């Protein structure tokens, strides 16, 4: 395995784990959304590195998948932020109480 690929694969794994941790323990929805976006970024990095980006022009199929993924991520984030504003407006807080509704 090429060193560049090794570096970025480990980076992707680390960022994914950091995102999972952030998502599980954050209370504010904005922070949870940041964590979800971090996880998405990590998956994209993994896809491109595994696609051979470290040695030459990477596999174009994962590149297209990542481009699609980036647009989906921004769409989901934008809708989540609109819903968050509504949450703040309806409940007076931008957090989700872990104990209600479950």
């Amino acid at each position: 395995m090429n060193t560049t690929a090794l570096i970025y694969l480990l980076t992707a794994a680390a960022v994914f784990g950091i995102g999972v941790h952030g998502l599980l323990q954050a209370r504010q929805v904005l922070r949870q959304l940041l964590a979800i976006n971090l996880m998405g970024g990590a998956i994209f990095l993994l896809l491109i590195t595994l696609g051979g980006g470290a040695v030459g022009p990477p596999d174009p199929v994962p590149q297209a998948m990542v481009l699609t993924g980036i647009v989906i991520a921004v769409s989901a984030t934008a809708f989540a932020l609109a819903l968050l504003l509504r949450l703040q407006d309806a409940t007076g807080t931008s957090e989700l109480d872990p104990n209600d509704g479950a």
Partner: protein
Amino acid sequence: MVHEALIGLVFLPLLGACLAVLPGRFGTRLAIVVGLASLPFLLLPVTLSVLREGAWFYTLGGWSAPLGIRLYVDPLALLMLWMVALIGGLAAAHAWHDFRPGTAAGERFWPLWLLLTAAMNGLFLSADLFNLYVCLELVTLAAIPLIAMAGSATAVRAAMRYLLLALLASLAYLLGVALLYNSSGTLDLYLLPDALATAPAPVTAFALALIGTGLLLKGAVFPLHVWLPQAHASAPGPVSAVLSALVVKTAIYLLYRVGLWSLPAGLLADGAMLLFAVLGAGALIYGGVLALLQDRLKLVIAYSTVAQLGYLLLALPLASLAAWQALTYQMLSHGLAKAAMFLAAANILHAIGSDRLSDLERLDQRTPLSLFALAVAGVSIMGLPPSGGFLAKWLLLEAAWRGGQWGLLSVLILGSLLAAAYVFRVLAAALRREDPSEAEDAEGISAIGRRQATYAMLLALLALVTGFAAAPILELMATGIPPTWGAA
């Protein structure tokens, strides 16, 4: 002609959504006709072709797999598509009155509804793992605003929780797909088994575990169901109906596709099926007990969904023809019955202003039609003859009996008893008479109330009729048995 019909199943609702975004009442009405009313007519030729020639692929853009994306239509996909067309259609008819085209609410509602329909149809047809990810996201992003449109603080909170968990689930799925793509070199579901035969086993196992976890979370399978009850209970009536009858099933459907079509048979598959069965048993009992403890009608129905989804996983280790027929029939009959119950509950909520069980007394006088729909659908949920639910559960029992699975048999019986308990509890509450005076029919007064009650009634009757007219459906399903089970 049949290719055009297949494409239309996805693209007519999609174009309908575009049309509904444009201003004016006329555009929305046309969009509903083009995007929703057309679906049964498109499905007819497709169904006939599958009956005649069996399952087939359609290659989009002429770029054959593994480079391009294929659509695949087989009996299981057909069943789901018919459910979208019928249940979605009747729920849309119900929604027509609450979200009239031309009103501000209608203008917001219909484009999302049409996109949701297109996304579900796309998902049931797609044969490509990444395309399925895009479809899953479209389903999520179209469904969640519809929940939040109920407007209450509870609904907004439930929508937010659902959204965060659904995004997490999609990411788990996507990570699994990323690993699978690299280890197998293809994204096509049906090329995967061969491609995976040479792939390193730990990678395959890890990737499939990620995909499975994501789908179990999206499918609200116990113990990952926490988001479902509030989300389904607080949404507007027709939205609750499609969420419970169709949207959660998208994840279960994908679980079948990945687990039964793409997974190479072997130790991994056996272990996964056993795990699914355990989770299904947990769902059946936990959901049943919690449904029994709720004091709001819509929450009872929502927890009943958690329980009934358990059946869809419970029989997976049996891997027999009877089990397959039972699973698919449960998919159909639960969809019909649950949609009927949610529509009836919405009518009751609308007519008497509350869905607390303590407020439900004398419903036989106040909302007779909706109560009748609720009761008939309840018969199917409990699994009493002569309903579709009975047939599904009977087939399951028979399969478990033949397979000598006594544990499974007892769980099935316990699940049915719990279902009977919570349905009877609702009916008992609805038939109470604390005040001897006559109450007036709150539902029959308005034409809209009558019509909305009819849609619930129609769905409930369909759930009942599927108990009689089962033979052709079961035969069709038998031809679509997953390849890993066909050998068994």
